[in-house]
Protein backbone atom coordinates (compact mmCIF):
# COMPACT_ATOMS: atom_id res chain seq x y z
CA UNK A 1 0.00 0.00 0.00
CA UNK A 2 2.83 2.32 0.94
CA UNK A 3 4.42 2.22 -2.46
CA UNK A 4 1.18 3.11 -4.22
CA UNK A 5 0.44 6.14 -2.09
CA UNK A 6 1.00 9.25 -4.21
CA UNK A 7 0.28 12.02 -1.71
CA UNK A 8 3.29 14.31 -1.75
CA UNK A 9 5.07 12.62 -4.65
CA UNK A 10 6.22 14.14 -7.89
CA UNK A 11 5.65 12.43 -11.23
CA UNK A 12 7.88 13.69 -14.00
CA UNK A 13 6.07 14.34 -17.29
CA UNK A 14 5.66 17.05 -19.87
CA UNK A 15 2.26 18.69 -19.58
CA UNK A 16 0.85 22.18 -19.38
CA UNK A 17 0.54 21.82 -15.64
CA UNK A 18 4.13 20.62 -15.34
CA UNK A 19 5.43 23.57 -17.33
CA UNK A 20 3.55 26.23 -15.40
CA UNK A 21 5.36 28.65 -13.16
CA UNK A 22 5.32 27.26 -9.60
CA UNK A 23 4.18 30.67 -8.34
CA UNK A 24 1.15 30.50 -10.59
CA UNK A 25 0.41 26.98 -9.40
CA UNK A 26 0.69 27.94 -5.76
CA UNK A 27 -1.61 30.94 -6.16
CA UNK A 28 -3.92 28.75 -8.22
CA UNK A 29 -4.23 26.08 -5.53
CA UNK A 30 -4.58 28.48 -2.61
CA UNK A 31 -7.11 30.58 -4.48
CA UNK A 32 -9.01 27.42 -5.38
CA UNK A 33 -9.15 26.44 -1.72
CA UNK A 34 -10.75 29.80 -0.93
CA UNK A 35 -13.05 29.85 -3.95
CA UNK A 36 -14.51 26.42 -3.35
CA UNK A 37 -16.10 27.71 -0.16
CA UNK A 38 -18.34 29.92 -2.29
CA UNK A 39 -20.14 26.85 -3.60
CA UNK A 40 -23.10 25.86 -1.47
CA UNK A 41 -25.49 24.07 -3.77
CA UNK A 42 -25.45 21.15 -6.16
CA UNK A 43 -24.69 23.26 -9.22
CA UNK A 44 -21.83 24.98 -7.52
CA UNK A 45 -20.21 21.64 -6.76
CA UNK A 46 -20.87 20.31 -10.25
CA UNK A 47 -19.04 23.31 -11.71
CA UNK A 48 -16.18 22.99 -9.21
CA UNK A 49 -15.89 19.28 -10.01
CA UNK A 50 -15.82 19.99 -13.74
CA UNK A 51 -13.13 22.59 -13.15
CA UNK A 52 -11.08 20.08 -11.18
CA UNK A 53 -11.55 17.49 -13.92
CA UNK A 54 -10.21 19.90 -16.54
CA UNK A 55 -7.24 20.64 -14.29
CA UNK A 56 -6.51 16.92 -14.03
CA UNK A 57 -6.62 16.68 -17.83
CA UNK A 58 -4.12 19.54 -18.07
CA UNK A 59 -1.69 17.62 -15.89
CA UNK A 60 -1.53 14.63 -18.24
CA UNK A 61 -2.25 12.26 -15.34
CA UNK A 62 -5.06 9.77 -15.57
CA UNK A 63 -8.01 10.21 -13.26
CA UNK A 64 -7.97 6.54 -12.41
CA UNK A 65 -4.38 6.72 -11.29
CA UNK A 66 -5.16 9.69 -9.07
CA UNK A 67 -8.11 7.97 -7.48
CA UNK A 68 -6.22 4.76 -6.80
CA UNK A 69 -3.24 6.69 -5.47
CA UNK A 70 -5.36 8.73 -3.10
CA UNK A 71 -7.24 5.77 -1.66
CA UNK A 72 -5.85 6.16 1.85
CA UNK A 73 -7.03 9.78 1.88
CA UNK A 74 -10.39 8.66 0.55
CA UNK A 75 -10.86 6.54 3.65
CA UNK A 76 -10.48 9.68 5.72
CA UNK A 77 -13.03 11.42 3.54
CA UNK A 78 -15.48 8.56 3.91
CA UNK A 79 -15.05 8.86 7.65
CA UNK A 80 -15.88 12.59 7.59
CA UNK A 81 -18.88 11.77 5.44
CA UNK A 82 -20.26 9.39 8.05
CA UNK A 83 -19.53 11.79 10.85
CA UNK A 84 -21.49 14.54 9.13
CA UNK A 85 -24.25 12.15 8.24
CA UNK A 86 -24.93 11.18 11.81
CA UNK A 87 -24.25 14.36 13.69
CA UNK A 88 -25.96 17.15 11.76
CA UNK A 89 -29.43 17.56 13.27
CA UNK A 90 -31.46 19.87 11.10
CA UNK A 91 -34.39 19.40 8.73
CA UNK A 92 -36.58 16.35 8.50
CA UNK A 93 -35.62 12.92 9.70
CA UNK A 94 -35.02 10.81 6.62
CA UNK A 95 -33.94 7.60 8.22
CA UNK A 96 -34.58 6.41 11.75
CA UNK A 97 -32.46 3.52 12.93
CA UNK A 98 -33.70 3.79 16.47
CA UNK A 99 -30.42 4.56 18.16
CA UNK A 100 -29.47 7.11 15.53
CA UNK A 101 -31.32 9.40 13.12
CA UNK A 102 -30.24 10.67 9.74
CA UNK A 103 -31.51 14.15 8.96
CA UNK A 104 -32.03 15.79 5.59
CA UNK A 105 -29.50 18.43 6.40
CA UNK A 106 -27.06 15.74 7.49
CA UNK A 107 -27.13 14.15 4.04
CA UNK A 108 -26.71 17.52 2.39
CA UNK A 109 -23.83 18.53 4.61
CA UNK A 110 -22.16 15.15 4.32
CA UNK A 111 -22.22 15.31 0.53
CA UNK A 112 -21.01 18.86 0.30
CA UNK A 113 -18.26 18.59 2.86
CA UNK A 114 -16.84 15.36 1.51
CA UNK A 115 -17.09 16.75 -2.03
CA UNK A 116 -15.22 19.86 -0.97
CA UNK A 117 -12.60 17.78 0.80
CA UNK A 118 -12.18 15.51 -2.24
CA UNK A 119 -11.72 18.39 -4.64
CA UNK A 120 -9.22 20.04 -2.33
CA UNK A 121 -7.21 16.85 -2.03
CA UNK A 122 -7.21 16.42 -5.80
CA UNK A 123 -6.08 19.97 -6.46
CA UNK A 124 -3.35 19.99 -3.85
CA UNK A 125 -2.14 16.59 -5.07
CA UNK A 126 -2.01 17.96 -8.59
CA UNK A 127 0.31 20.66 -7.30
CA UNK A 128 2.76 18.21 -5.76
CA UNK A 129 2.41 15.66 -8.56
CA UNK A 130 3.33 18.16 -11.27
CA UNK A 131 5.87 20.28 -9.40
CA UNK A 132 9.20 19.18 -8.00
CA UNK A 133 9.55 19.96 -4.30
CA UNK A 134 12.38 22.28 -5.14
CA UNK A 135 10.32 24.43 -7.47
CA UNK A 136 7.45 24.55 -5.00
CA UNK A 137 9.94 25.97 -2.54
CA UNK A 138 11.32 28.43 -5.07
CA UNK A 139 7.83 29.60 -5.87
CA UNK A 140 6.83 29.92 -2.26
CA UNK A 141 9.92 31.84 -1.35
CA UNK A 142 9.44 34.18 -4.25
CA UNK A 143 5.83 34.80 -3.28
CA UNK A 144 6.70 35.41 0.34
CA UNK A 145 9.66 37.62 -0.48
CA UNK A 146 7.85 40.93 0.09
CA UNK A 147 7.21 39.83 3.67
CA UNK A 148 10.93 39.79 4.41
CA UNK A 149 10.63 43.52 4.96
CA UNK A 150 8.66 42.83 8.13
CA UNK A 151 11.24 40.26 9.22
CA UNK A 152 9.21 37.29 8.08
CA UNK A 153 11.62 34.34 7.64
CA UNK A 154 10.51 33.53 4.10
CA UNK A 155 13.69 31.76 3.08
CA UNK A 156 13.89 29.64 6.21
CA UNK A 157 10.27 28.67 5.92
CA UNK A 158 10.71 27.67 2.30
CA UNK A 159 13.79 25.69 3.20
CA UNK A 160 12.03 23.86 6.01
CA UNK A 161 9.20 23.01 3.71
CA UNK A 162 11.42 21.73 0.96
CA UNK A 163 13.31 19.52 3.39
CA UNK A 164 10.07 18.12 4.77
CA UNK A 165 8.76 17.42 1.27
CA UNK A 166 12.04 15.94 0.19
CA UNK A 167 11.97 13.38 3.01
CA UNK A 168 8.41 12.14 2.65
CA UNK A 169 9.34 9.42 0.13
CA UNK A 170 12.47 8.56 2.10
CA UNK A 171 10.45 8.09 5.25
CA UNK A 172 7.94 5.95 3.42
CA UNK A 173 10.64 3.71 2.01
CA UNK A 174 12.17 3.45 5.43
CA UNK A 175 8.84 2.57 7.03
CA UNK A 176 8.48 -0.21 4.52
CA UNK A 177 11.98 -1.48 5.19
CA UNK A 178 11.71 -1.47 8.99
CA UNK A 179 8.26 -3.00 8.83
CA UNK A 180 9.71 -5.88 6.81
CA UNK A 181 12.62 -6.27 9.20
CA UNK A 182 10.30 -6.52 12.19
CA UNK A 183 7.94 -8.84 10.35
CA UNK A 184 10.92 -11.10 9.70
CA UNK A 185 11.34 -11.13 13.48
CA UNK A 186 7.79 -12.32 13.92
CA UNK A 187 5.97 -9.05 14.47
CA UNK A 188 2.46 -9.19 13.08
CA UNK A 189 0.81 -5.93 12.19
CA UNK A 190 -1.95 -7.22 10.00
CA UNK A 191 -3.72 -9.79 12.10
CA UNK A 192 -4.57 -10.63 15.67
CA UNK A 193 -6.40 -8.54 18.27
CA UNK A 194 -6.27 -4.75 18.08
CA UNK A 195 -4.20 -4.51 21.25
CA UNK A 196 -1.42 -6.60 19.71
CA UNK A 197 -1.51 -4.65 16.50
CA UNK A 198 -1.07 -1.37 18.32
CA UNK A 199 1.78 -2.90 20.28
CA UNK A 200 3.41 -3.90 17.00
CA UNK A 201 3.66 -0.23 16.03
CA UNK A 202 6.26 0.58 18.68
CA UNK A 203 9.06 -1.47 17.05
CA UNK A 204 8.29 0.44 13.86
CA UNK A 205 8.01 3.97 15.22
CA UNK A 206 11.10 3.99 17.40
CA UNK A 207 13.63 3.13 14.69
CA UNK A 208 11.83 5.52 12.38
CA UNK A 209 12.17 8.41 14.80
CA UNK A 210 15.73 7.55 15.72
CA UNK A 211 16.69 7.53 12.05
CA UNK A 212 14.82 10.74 11.32
CA UNK A 213 16.60 12.59 14.12
CA UNK A 214 19.94 11.20 13.08
CA UNK A 215 19.33 12.23 9.52
CA UNK A 216 18.26 15.72 10.55
CA UNK A 217 21.44 16.13 12.55
CA UNK A 218 23.60 14.90 9.69
CA UNK A 219 21.86 17.24 7.30
CA UNK A 220 22.37 20.21 9.61
CA UNK A 221 26.06 19.37 9.94
CA UNK A 222 26.45 18.93 6.19
CA UNK A 223 24.83 22.32 5.59
CA UNK A 224 26.98 24.02 8.20
CA UNK A 225 30.27 22.68 6.92
CA UNK A 226 29.35 23.92 3.47
CA UNK A 227 28.86 27.38 4.86
CA UNK A 228 25.11 27.63 4.66
CA UNK A 229 23.90 30.82 6.28
CA UNK A 230 20.37 31.44 5.09
CA UNK A 231 18.93 33.43 2.22
CA UNK A 232 20.78 36.71 2.72
CA UNK A 233 22.46 37.76 -0.53
CA UNK A 234 21.93 34.36 -2.11
CA UNK A 235 21.54 34.33 -5.87
CA UNK A 236 19.31 31.85 -7.64
CA UNK A 237 20.44 29.00 -9.83
CA UNK A 238 16.90 28.24 -10.97
CA UNK A 239 15.06 31.28 -12.25
CA UNK A 240 11.30 31.53 -12.51
CA UNK A 241 9.55 32.74 -15.65
CA UNK A 242 5.95 33.89 -15.70
CA UNK A 243 4.30 33.07 -19.04
CA UNK A 244 0.97 33.79 -20.69
CA UNK A 245 -0.39 30.36 -19.69
CA UNK A 246 0.13 31.25 -16.05
CA UNK A 247 -1.96 34.36 -16.43
CA UNK A 248 -4.63 32.37 -18.24
CA UNK A 249 -4.74 29.79 -15.50
CA UNK A 250 -5.38 32.47 -12.91
CA UNK A 251 -7.99 34.09 -15.14
CA UNK A 252 -9.84 30.78 -15.34
CA UNK A 253 -10.03 30.87 -11.57
CA UNK A 254 -11.63 34.29 -11.68
CA UNK A 255 -14.20 32.80 -14.04
CA UNK A 256 -14.79 29.92 -11.66
CA UNK A 257 -15.25 32.28 -8.74
CA UNK A 258 -17.68 34.34 -10.82
CA UNK A 259 -19.71 31.32 -11.83
CA UNK A 260 -19.88 29.96 -8.29
CA UNK A 261 -20.87 33.35 -6.92
CA UNK A 262 -23.53 33.69 -9.60
CA UNK A 263 -25.09 30.39 -8.56
CA UNK A 264 -24.90 31.18 -4.91
CA UNK A 265 -26.25 34.71 -4.89
CA UNK A 266 -28.42 35.21 -7.95
CA UNK A 267 -29.71 31.97 -9.32
Amino acid at each position, binding site marked *: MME*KMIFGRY*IPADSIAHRMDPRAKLIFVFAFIAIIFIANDVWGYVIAAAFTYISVKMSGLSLRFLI*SGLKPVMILIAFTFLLQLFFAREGNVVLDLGFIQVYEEGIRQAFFISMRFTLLVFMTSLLTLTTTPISITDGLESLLNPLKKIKFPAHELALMMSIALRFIPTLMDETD*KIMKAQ*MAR*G*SDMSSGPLKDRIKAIVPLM*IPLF*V*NAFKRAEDLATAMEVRGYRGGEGRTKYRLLFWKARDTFALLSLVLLAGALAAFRFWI
Partner: protein
Amino acid sequence: MDIVLEQVEYRYAANSPFEKKAVEDVTFKIPEGQCTAIIGHTGSGKSTLLLHLNALLKPTSGTVQIGERTVKAGRKEKDLKPIREKVGIVFQFPEQQLFEETVMKDICYGPMNFGVSEQEAKKRAAFWLKEVGMPEEVLGKSPFDLSGGQMRRVAIAGVLAMEPEVLVLDEPTAGLDPRGRREMMEMFYRLHQERGITLVLVTHSMEDAARYADKVVVMHKGRKVHEAPPRELFSDTARLAEWGLGVPEVVKFQRMLEEKTGKAFPKVCLTMDELADMLKQGGESL
Protein backbone atom coordinates in the same frame (compact mmCIF):
# COMPACT_ATOMS: atom_id res chain seq x y z
CA MET B 1 14.55 -27.60 4.36
CA ASP B 2 15.07 -26.67 0.73
CA ILE B 3 13.85 -23.45 -0.82
CA VAL B 4 12.96 -23.64 -4.49
CA LEU B 5 12.23 -20.62 -6.63
CA GLU B 6 10.42 -21.18 -9.87
CA GLN B 7 10.09 -18.50 -12.54
CA VAL B 8 9.80 -15.86 -9.89
CA GLU B 9 8.93 -12.40 -11.09
CA TYR B 10 8.40 -9.36 -8.89
CA ARG B 11 7.13 -5.97 -9.94
CA TYR B 12 7.14 -3.14 -7.41
CA ALA B 13 3.99 -0.99 -7.37
CA ALA B 14 2.40 -3.32 -9.91
CA ASN B 15 -0.20 -1.67 -12.15
CA SER B 16 0.74 1.90 -11.38
CA PRO B 17 2.90 4.47 -13.19
CA PHE B 18 5.69 3.64 -10.75
CA GLU B 19 5.67 0.00 -11.76
CA LYS B 20 9.15 -1.41 -11.75
CA LYS B 21 10.14 -4.92 -12.60
CA ALA B 22 12.87 -5.85 -10.14
CA VAL B 23 13.10 -9.61 -10.65
CA GLU B 24 12.20 -11.65 -13.69
CA ASP B 25 12.05 -15.35 -14.49
CA VAL B 26 14.34 -16.52 -11.70
CA THR B 27 14.56 -20.24 -11.07
CA PHE B 28 16.98 -21.92 -8.71
CA LYS B 29 17.21 -24.08 -5.65
CA ILE B 30 18.70 -23.39 -2.26
CA PRO B 31 19.58 -26.85 -0.98
CA GLU B 32 19.40 -27.63 2.70
CA GLY B 33 22.67 -27.41 4.59
CA GLN B 34 24.57 -25.61 1.86
CA CYS B 35 25.89 -22.11 1.53
CA THR B 36 24.47 -20.35 -1.51
CA ALA B 37 25.92 -16.98 -2.46
CA ILE B 38 24.05 -14.46 -4.60
CA ILE B 39 26.17 -11.87 -6.34
CA GLY B 40 25.36 -9.11 -8.78
CA HIS B 41 25.67 -5.42 -9.42
CA THR B 42 23.75 -2.91 -7.29
CA GLY B 43 20.12 -2.85 -8.40
CA SER B 44 20.25 -6.31 -9.95
CA GLY B 45 17.41 -7.51 -7.73
CA LYS B 46 19.26 -9.41 -5.02
CA SER B 47 17.50 -7.83 -2.06
CA THR B 48 14.12 -8.14 -3.72
CA LEU B 49 14.78 -11.81 -4.31
CA LEU B 50 15.73 -12.36 -0.67
CA LEU B 51 12.42 -10.98 0.54
CA HIS B 52 10.73 -13.89 -1.20
CA LEU B 53 12.65 -16.44 0.83
CA ASN B 54 10.48 -15.94 3.90
CA ALA B 55 7.35 -14.67 2.19
CA LEU B 56 7.84 -11.00 3.03
CA LEU B 57 7.10 -10.50 -0.64
CA LYS B 58 4.87 -12.67 -2.72
CA PRO B 59 5.96 -13.11 -6.32
CA THR B 60 3.82 -11.30 -8.89
CA SER B 61 4.23 -14.45 -10.95
CA GLY B 62 5.82 -17.83 -10.31
CA THR B 63 6.18 -19.84 -7.13
CA VAL B 64 8.46 -20.04 -4.13
CA GLN B 65 8.54 -23.31 -2.28
CA ILE B 66 9.80 -23.01 1.28
CA GLY B 67 10.05 -26.45 2.84
CA GLU B 68 6.53 -27.83 2.87
CA ARG B 69 4.88 -24.51 2.07
CA THR B 70 4.35 -23.07 -1.38
CA VAL B 71 3.89 -19.36 -1.91
CA LYS B 72 2.28 -18.75 -5.24
CA ALA B 73 1.49 -15.58 -7.16
CA GLY B 74 -2.08 -14.41 -6.81
CA ARG B 75 -2.99 -16.66 -3.93
CA LYS B 76 -3.77 -15.38 -0.47
CA GLU B 77 -1.47 -16.82 2.14
CA LYS B 78 -2.40 -17.21 5.74
CA ASP B 79 -0.28 -17.75 8.78
CA LEU B 80 3.17 -16.97 7.45
CA LYS B 81 4.75 -16.99 10.90
CA PRO B 82 5.97 -20.60 10.73
CA ILE B 83 7.86 -19.70 7.55
CA ARG B 84 9.43 -16.66 9.15
CA GLU B 85 10.43 -18.69 12.16
CA LYS B 86 12.36 -21.13 10.00
CA VAL B 87 13.92 -18.58 7.67
CA GLY B 88 15.68 -15.73 9.45
CA ILE B 89 16.76 -12.69 7.47
CA VAL B 90 19.52 -10.32 8.43
CA PHE B 91 18.78 -7.23 6.40
CA GLN B 92 21.22 -4.73 5.01
CA PHE B 93 22.15 -2.39 7.88
CA PRO B 94 20.20 -4.44 10.44
CA GLU B 95 21.22 -2.00 13.20
CA GLN B 96 18.30 0.13 12.02
CA GLN B 97 15.81 -2.37 13.37
CA LEU B 98 16.82 -2.05 17.03
CA PHE B 99 14.16 -0.44 19.17
CA GLU B 100 14.10 -1.80 22.72
CA GLU B 101 15.35 -0.19 25.91
CA THR B 102 17.95 -2.85 26.47
CA VAL B 103 19.99 -5.16 24.32
CA MET B 104 18.52 -8.10 26.21
CA LYS B 105 14.94 -7.11 25.41
CA ASP B 106 15.76 -6.47 21.79
CA ILE B 107 17.33 -9.88 21.28
CA CYS B 108 14.35 -11.51 23.04
CA TYR B 109 11.86 -9.76 20.75
CA GLY B 110 12.13 -12.21 17.86
CA PRO B 111 12.12 -15.47 19.85
CA MET B 112 9.23 -14.32 22.04
CA ASN B 113 7.18 -13.39 18.98
CA PHE B 114 7.51 -17.00 17.95
CA GLY B 115 6.29 -18.28 21.29
CA VAL B 116 9.54 -18.90 23.12
CA SER B 117 9.16 -18.39 26.89
CA GLU B 118 10.74 -15.32 28.45
CA GLN B 119 13.13 -17.42 30.48
CA GLU B 120 14.30 -19.37 27.46
CA ALA B 121 14.55 -16.19 25.37
CA LYS B 122 16.80 -14.58 27.97
CA LYS B 123 19.01 -17.63 27.99
CA ARG B 124 19.25 -17.46 24.23
CA ALA B 125 20.00 -13.73 24.35
CA ALA B 126 22.98 -14.27 26.62
CA PHE B 127 24.19 -17.16 24.47
CA TRP B 128 23.89 -15.49 21.09
CA LEU B 129 25.34 -12.22 22.25
CA LYS B 130 28.48 -14.12 23.17
CA GLU B 131 28.42 -15.91 19.82
CA VAL B 132 28.51 -12.62 17.92
CA GLY B 133 31.53 -11.59 19.95
CA MET B 134 30.05 -9.14 22.45
CA PRO B 135 30.67 -9.10 26.22
CA GLU B 136 27.80 -10.12 28.45
CA GLU B 137 27.56 -6.82 30.36
CA VAL B 138 26.17 -5.20 27.21
CA LEU B 139 22.88 -7.04 27.82
CA GLY B 140 21.64 -4.37 30.23
CA LYS B 141 22.69 -1.42 28.07
CA SER B 142 20.57 0.53 25.64
CA PRO B 143 21.32 -0.54 22.07
CA PHE B 144 21.47 3.14 21.12
CA ASP B 145 24.52 3.66 23.33
CA LEU B 146 26.59 1.22 21.29
CA SER B 147 28.85 1.88 18.33
CA GLY B 148 27.58 1.15 14.81
CA GLY B 149 29.52 -2.10 14.58
CA GLN B 150 28.29 -3.26 17.98
CA MET B 151 24.71 -2.40 17.08
CA ARG B 152 25.10 -4.53 13.98
CA ARG B 153 26.23 -7.48 16.08
CA VAL B 154 23.34 -7.08 18.50
CA ALA B 155 20.86 -6.94 15.62
CA ILE B 156 22.37 -10.10 14.16
CA ALA B 157 22.17 -11.80 17.55
CA GLY B 158 18.47 -10.85 17.54
CA VAL B 159 17.94 -12.87 14.38
CA LEU B 160 20.19 -15.75 15.41
CA ALA B 161 18.29 -16.06 18.70
CA MET B 162 15.24 -17.09 16.67
CA GLU B 163 17.39 -20.14 15.81
CA PRO B 164 16.22 -20.38 12.22
CA GLU B 165 16.98 -23.34 9.97
CA VAL B 166 17.88 -21.07 7.09
CA LEU B 167 19.83 -17.90 7.64
CA VAL B 168 19.61 -15.28 4.91
CA LEU B 169 22.22 -12.52 4.96
CA ASP B 170 21.96 -9.38 2.88
CA GLU B 171 25.43 -7.87 2.67
CA PRO B 172 25.98 -8.49 6.37
CA THR B 173 29.45 -6.97 6.45
CA ALA B 174 28.81 -3.80 4.42
CA GLY B 175 30.33 -0.82 6.19
CA LEU B 176 32.35 -2.81 8.73
CA ASP B 177 36.11 -2.59 9.12
CA PRO B 178 38.16 -5.41 7.54
CA ARG B 179 38.70 -7.22 10.81
CA GLY B 180 35.04 -6.98 11.77
CA ARG B 181 34.14 -8.32 8.36
CA ARG B 182 36.39 -11.30 8.67
CA GLU B 183 35.20 -12.12 12.18
CA MET B 184 31.59 -11.85 11.25
CA MET B 185 31.86 -14.03 8.16
CA GLU B 186 33.87 -16.62 10.08
CA MET B 187 31.14 -16.64 12.73
CA PHE B 188 28.42 -17.30 10.18
CA TYR B 189 30.47 -19.97 8.51
CA ARG B 190 31.16 -21.69 11.81
CA LEU B 191 27.43 -21.77 12.56
CA HIS B 192 26.86 -23.20 9.13
CA GLN B 193 29.41 -25.95 9.63
CA GLU B 194 28.73 -26.78 13.26
CA ARG B 195 24.96 -26.59 13.24
CA GLY B 196 24.22 -27.32 9.62
CA ILE B 197 22.35 -24.02 9.18
CA THR B 198 21.56 -23.36 5.55
CA LEU B 199 23.20 -20.08 4.52
CA VAL B 200 22.10 -17.68 1.82
CA LEU B 201 24.61 -14.91 1.41
CA VAL B 202 24.23 -11.80 -0.71
CA THR B 203 27.61 -10.21 -1.04
CA HIS B 204 29.69 -7.77 -3.02
CA SER B 205 32.83 -9.47 -1.91
CA MET B 206 34.06 -11.99 -4.46
CA GLU B 207 36.48 -13.20 -1.81
CA ASP B 208 33.61 -14.18 0.48
CA ALA B 209 31.71 -15.84 -2.34
CA ALA B 210 34.81 -17.80 -3.32
CA ARG B 211 35.72 -18.78 0.21
CA TYR B 212 32.36 -19.75 1.69
CA ALA B 213 29.86 -20.63 -1.03
CA ASP B 214 29.01 -24.08 -2.31
CA LYS B 215 27.16 -22.46 -5.16
CA VAL B 216 27.06 -18.95 -6.56
CA VAL B 217 24.04 -17.44 -8.29
CA VAL B 218 24.72 -14.41 -10.47
CA MET B 219 22.00 -11.81 -10.89
CA HIS B 220 22.07 -9.24 -13.65
CA LYS B 221 19.32 -6.73 -14.38
CA GLY B 222 16.72 -8.73 -12.47
CA ARG B 223 17.55 -12.05 -14.11
CA LYS B 224 19.59 -15.01 -13.02
CA VAL B 225 22.37 -15.19 -15.59
CA HIS B 226 24.55 -17.88 -14.09
CA GLU B 227 24.65 -20.51 -11.40
CA ALA B 228 27.79 -22.47 -10.67
CA PRO B 229 30.21 -23.60 -7.98
CA PRO B 230 32.69 -20.79 -7.26
CA ARG B 231 35.63 -22.54 -8.86
CA GLU B 232 33.84 -22.82 -12.14
CA LEU B 233 32.43 -19.32 -11.96
CA PHE B 234 35.68 -17.56 -11.19
CA SER B 235 37.64 -19.31 -13.89
CA ASP B 236 35.82 -17.23 -16.50
CA THR B 237 37.00 -13.68 -15.80
CA ALA B 238 35.75 -12.25 -19.08
CA ARG B 239 32.21 -13.43 -18.53
CA LEU B 240 32.07 -11.94 -15.04
CA ALA B 241 33.26 -8.60 -16.38
CA GLU B 242 30.24 -8.55 -18.70
CA TRP B 243 28.01 -8.46 -15.62
CA GLY B 244 30.12 -5.78 -14.01
CA LEU B 245 31.71 -8.22 -11.59
CA GLY B 246 35.31 -9.03 -10.82
CA VAL B 247 37.18 -12.04 -9.50
CA PRO B 248 38.87 -12.46 -6.10
CA GLU B 249 42.30 -10.84 -5.77
CA VAL B 250 43.93 -14.24 -5.45
CA VAL B 251 42.54 -15.28 -8.83
CA LYS B 252 43.87 -12.08 -10.40
CA PHE B 253 47.23 -12.84 -8.86
CA GLN B 254 47.20 -16.38 -10.19
CA ARG B 255 46.40 -15.11 -13.68
CA MET B 256 49.31 -12.70 -13.57
CA LEU B 257 51.57 -15.46 -12.40
CA GLU B 258 50.42 -17.70 -15.22
CA GLU B 259 51.10 -14.96 -17.72
CA LYS B 260 54.57 -14.30 -16.35
CA THR B 261 55.60 -17.96 -16.26
CA GLY B 262 53.72 -18.93 -19.38
CA LYS B 263 52.29 -21.96 -17.61
CA ALA B 264 48.66 -22.59 -16.81
CA PHE B 265 47.78 -23.97 -13.38
CA PRO B 266 45.59 -27.08 -13.30
CA LYS B 267 42.80 -25.23 -11.46
CA VAL B 268 41.72 -21.82 -10.19
CA CYS B 269 42.70 -21.30 -6.56
CA LEU B 270 40.02 -19.64 -4.47
CA THR B 271 42.03 -18.74 -1.41
CA MET B 272 45.55 -17.64 -0.65
CA ASP B 273 46.22 -20.91 1.19
CA GLU B 274 45.13 -22.96 -1.76
CA LEU B 275 47.38 -21.02 -4.08
CA ALA B 276 50.31 -21.35 -1.68
CA ASP B 277 49.79 -25.11 -1.51
CA MET B 278 49.68 -25.41 -5.23
CA LEU B 279 52.82 -23.38 -5.63
CA LYS B 280 54.54 -25.56 -3.05
CA GLN B 281 53.57 -28.74 -4.86
CA GLY B 282 54.41 -27.55 -8.33
CA GLY B 283 57.21 -25.24 -7.22
CA GLU B 284 59.94 -27.10 -9.07
CA SER B 285 58.12 -27.33 -12.34
CA LEU B 286 57.28 -23.60 -12.47
